[in-house]
């Protein structure tokens, strides 16, 4: 994993913020991880970015805590976050990945709606992080590949991005580009 020290620091902060029930700060932390993930494009960094953002979203939805299976998920989250952090500190990346995988796998043990809802949070977090990486200047196809999401899903998100409105995104006068289009179809 690239920048493992930074990721380790993030994971420790996340654990503390979960205990403090501070979903807002967790989401801010997820933005920091995405800056890192954009530069490194390391799949493990991206997994952590998605995980951190998802945790923020899940904790924000307080009604989840009253649903059947919450304890199973929450205990698995804390346990595997701890385990993953220890493995990363010991440079054991494969075990670290297994621990993070177990957080999502725990959802399969939950009956009822909570599992489906949280799976949906993770899926949307992947698209959200892909969108964020795109906003950071990486091509849409590259980001779709990095996050394993469909470009078809990503397209509508990209369409909502205000980044296209930025002057910096305009690389050619409108007239000039239209002329290219009209010339080829003459």
């Amino acid at each position: 994993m690239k920048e493992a020290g930074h990721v380790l620091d993030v994971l420790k902060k996340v654990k503390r913020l979960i205990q403090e029930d501070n979903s807002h700060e967790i989401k801010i932390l997820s933005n920091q991880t995405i800056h890192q993930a954009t530069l490194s494009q390391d799949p493990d960094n991206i997994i952590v970015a998605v995980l951190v953002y998802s945790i923020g979203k899940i904790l924000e939805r307080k009604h989840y805590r009253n649903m059947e299976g919450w304890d199973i998920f929450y205990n698995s989250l804390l346990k595997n976050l701890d385990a993953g952090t220890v493995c990363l500190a010991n440079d054991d990346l494969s075990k670290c990945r297994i621990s993070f995988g177990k957080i999502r796998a725990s959802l399969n043990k939950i009956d009822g709606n909570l599992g489906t809802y949280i799976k949906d949070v993770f899926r949307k977090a992947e698209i959200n992080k892909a969108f964020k990486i795109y906003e950071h200047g990486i091509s849409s196809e590259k980001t779709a590949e990095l996050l394993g999401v469909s470009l078809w899903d990503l397209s509508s998100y990209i369409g909502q991005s205000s980044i296209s409105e930025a002057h910096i995104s305009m690389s050619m006068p409108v007239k000039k580009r239209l002329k290219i289009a009209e010339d080829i179809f003459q």
Partner: protein
Amino acid sequence: MKYVIFDTGPLISLTMNGLLPVLEKLKENFNGEFIITPSVKQEVIDRPMKIKKYKFEAIKIKNLVDRKILKYSSDFISNNVLEKETKKIMKLGNGVLRSQKNGEKISIIHEGEASCIAFARLCKCENVIIIDERSTRLLAESPQNLKKLIERKVHTKISMENSLASEFKEFKFIRSPELMFVAYKKNLIPLKKDKQTLDAILYSLKFKGAAISSKEIEEMKQLA
């Protein structure tokens, strides 16, 4: 021979907006070929064909291929040759920017976009690449802006290899909105020809992924 080379994004936004019949009419009025590369085919036909949500869209695009409205790049350049050139383009494009923090290259472009550029480079004919996403266009047309954009977002200094960036200057890019602008001007859109229609089409393409600003759309409407 002239070629219009399609990246994935424009085909997605045209399909999702029900504009493939307009593309077909444009082809009837075009003295050349509409091309898709194997990587683009993978994203617009093969993958969505396995996703229930998008299978119908994939079938619609495949129908255009079956009817030779869209042609595979392999009809003109062998996949092996294209693949080699695509790798070269990816190496060049993904070597332009580096993080000054750790010296690592920032990988910007993907095989799909690179294969379109590779075809444009190999075809030795008049061509235009249709690409809706912003990063590849910026890399070719204004790498300095791309550098600034990434620097702002990741809060890290980025260095740029100008000699590599200059390799992309020769390519011509348009987006799906310019394509539909041409169709509008040529009366190929089966709707009342007025600014409202054009406005609606351009914004719907924007909201389905075409990187175009509202300011650009307004300017296009003035020029119509």
